[in-house]
């Protein structure tokens, strides 16, 4: 039941320039109730200077995946299988020392809640300076200069004085800016942003999203942007990966996935989400049921218990066979390409306009 590319691991499906490639990643937590397959056979690529959006609901495995890339999962309770190659370097088998050299240096992360993600005990300046001193061997003075430069860049007023402030003296939006500045201190090649604006107000979110986009143009980092918000991802991502219950169900360019989605789960997401321009005579169309427990996930396609179109698939394939996710623009669903197209045009699209 392997999905894809087991045979062509080395050559990435989306071309040779992919900077990070994840192949058949499996992450399992051992819990008191049994093993939880948080990520189950996930493959994707990120290209230099591009943004990959990963969208999914809570429990879809999107955050776990990215902690695993950084090697920040708890080694005691987690088993990781598969391959994560960044710039030619395999990360799963890398030693802790090697990972420490990469973290904060070549790859950096921005977390969801900047209030809890910054230490309350040290000044913002110190927290910014640390990675620069460690990775660049910079002196305190050099690190301070760099930190002030970065604080200025992300739009913190009076960066010289704010350098000595503690995170709790910053407002929510300012904290997230400081977090971004911290991630960019060493000019990383890969930036992982895990729901970076979910805790923020909408007007502040808009500032931060634009800031990330503008900074990406300047720094040229590849970004993995994780969110549950389809609107945010539509604004941010070049490529898109839709995850459900630990697996990728659809992949493609953001534009393709949004304009011609192919997976029933993506359809469900799009038609259940209220938009500012949606037709108000049309009621929202929720996805029935709730996401499955990953302790006892459904067999076959994990979405089949909530899917309205399983009858269209011959036999009981949906509940027995895991649908493969092909390369490039693809969706992991047993429906045929024609069926998907007709369904989308007849049933889904009218709802979205």
């Amino acid at each position: 039941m392997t999905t894809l590319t087991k045979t062509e691991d080395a050559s990435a499906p989306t071309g040779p320039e992919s900077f990070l490639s994840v192949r058949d990643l499996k992450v399992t937590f051992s819990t008191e109730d049994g093993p939880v397959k948080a990520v189950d056979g996930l493959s994707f690529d990120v290209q230099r200077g591009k943004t990959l959006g990963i969208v999914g609901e809570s429990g879809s495995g999107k955050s776990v995946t990215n902690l695993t890339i950084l090697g920040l999962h708890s080694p005691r309770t987690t088993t990781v299988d598969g391959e994560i190659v960044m710039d030619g370097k395999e990360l799963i088998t890398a030693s802790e020392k090697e990972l420490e050299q990469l973290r904060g240096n070549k790859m950096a992360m921005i977390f969801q809640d900047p209030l809890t993600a910054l230490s309350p005990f040290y000044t913002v300046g110190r927290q910014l300076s640390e990675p620069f001193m460690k990775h660049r061997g910079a002196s305190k003075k050099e690190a301070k200069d760099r930190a002030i430069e970065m604080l200025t860049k992300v739009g913190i007023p009076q960066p010289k004085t704010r350098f000595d402030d503690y995170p709790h003296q910053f407002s929510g939006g300012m904290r997230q800016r400081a977090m971004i500045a911290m991630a960019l201190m060493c000019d990383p090649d890969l930036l992982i942003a895990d729901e970076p604006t979910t805790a923020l107000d909408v007007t502040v979110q808009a500032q931060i999203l634009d800031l990330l986009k503008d900074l990406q143009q300047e720094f040229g980092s590849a970004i993995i942007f994780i969110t549950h918000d389809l609107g945010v991802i539509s604004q941010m991502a070049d490529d898109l990966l839709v995850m459900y219950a630990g697996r990728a169900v659809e992949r493609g360019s953001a534009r393709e996935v949004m304009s011609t989605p192919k997976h029933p789960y993506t359809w469900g997401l799009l038609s259940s989400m209220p938009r500012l321009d949606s037709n108000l005579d049309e009621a929202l169309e929720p996805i029935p049921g709730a996401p499955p427990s990953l302790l006892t996930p459904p067999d076959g396609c994990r979405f089949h218990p909530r899917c309205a179109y399983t009858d269209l698939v011959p036999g009981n394939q949906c509940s027995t066979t895991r649908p493969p996710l092909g390369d490039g623009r693809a969706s992991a669903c047993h429906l045929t390409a024609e069926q998907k197209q007709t369904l989308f045009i007849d049933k889904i699209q009218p709802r979205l306009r």
Partner: protein
Amino acid sequence: MLQFIIRRTLGAVVTLFLIGAATFFLFVAAPSDYASLACGKDCSPQRLADIREALGLNLPVAQQFWDFMTGIFMGRDFPTGHCSAPCLGQSFYSGEMVWSTIMDRFPLTLTLTVGGSIVFLVVGIGAGMLAAFRRGSFVDKFATGASMVLSSFQIYFLGPIVLVILVYSTGLMEDPKYVPLTQDPVGWFVGMSIPVCVMATIFTAQYTRMARSSMIEQLAEEHVRTARAKGMSKKYVFFRYAWRGSLIPIVTVFGIDFSAMLGGAVVTELTFSLQGIGRLAVNGATTKDLPLTMGVMLVGAFFILIVNILTDIAYAFIDPRVRLS
């Protein structure tokens, strides 16, 4: 900061007064007093009246209280002599000045408290942190197991066992006794080492468990993960980021324990036949010795209040979010 200290000190004075008042009036309200105990079996009313007069118990209660409280600041004169401020009165039982009695006993209590604290803080927090750092390892299991067993022990159980082993059967050490530090530092150290260590052992077990769980909690904090995501090493993150947060619950509990011990470690003193503040408190209560009880109470309360203020100041040093006001 200064404002905070001034405000809290003023508050402490008021609290002390209220504690003193409560103790005094509760004591007076008790059905029997020292005079009736001292008067003995065949007590004539005349004799009782004499005793009461000698002790000043014949005066109105409010007057007694007033005399006692003013004595603390101004000193008092007794038929047996002058008691200079801070005067906590004259013991009914021994006739000694309560203040000097307490001062006699205090070095021993201080030795127990400070010595014990140093041992259990260093060993307990050290073991707890090591266990948290190597979570799931043999060290962790050993530390957790040992602290579980030890914390279910009591001083009056562990104390005699240690005495039997080290003193009575092998004669490796002498019976614990207190020698003033200024007289004989070696004797002071040797004499007090058994009580200090036994008492510290029980506390060590508690502090190990507390430090471990507090540390593990901190290690799961998001800001600790952020620090790791910056590439800081496990050790660095452990000692710089997680450690500081884990101190807060420890400081809280330590403040309570420390001030309680300064008020007298009754069980330890009884177990090792030592004469500390704890003994005084027990004596005062059983003999209905009002001045002695008042003295011990007020001194104990004084330490609790002082340590309380110090604990709050410590919070502010550990956590910049805490503002003293």
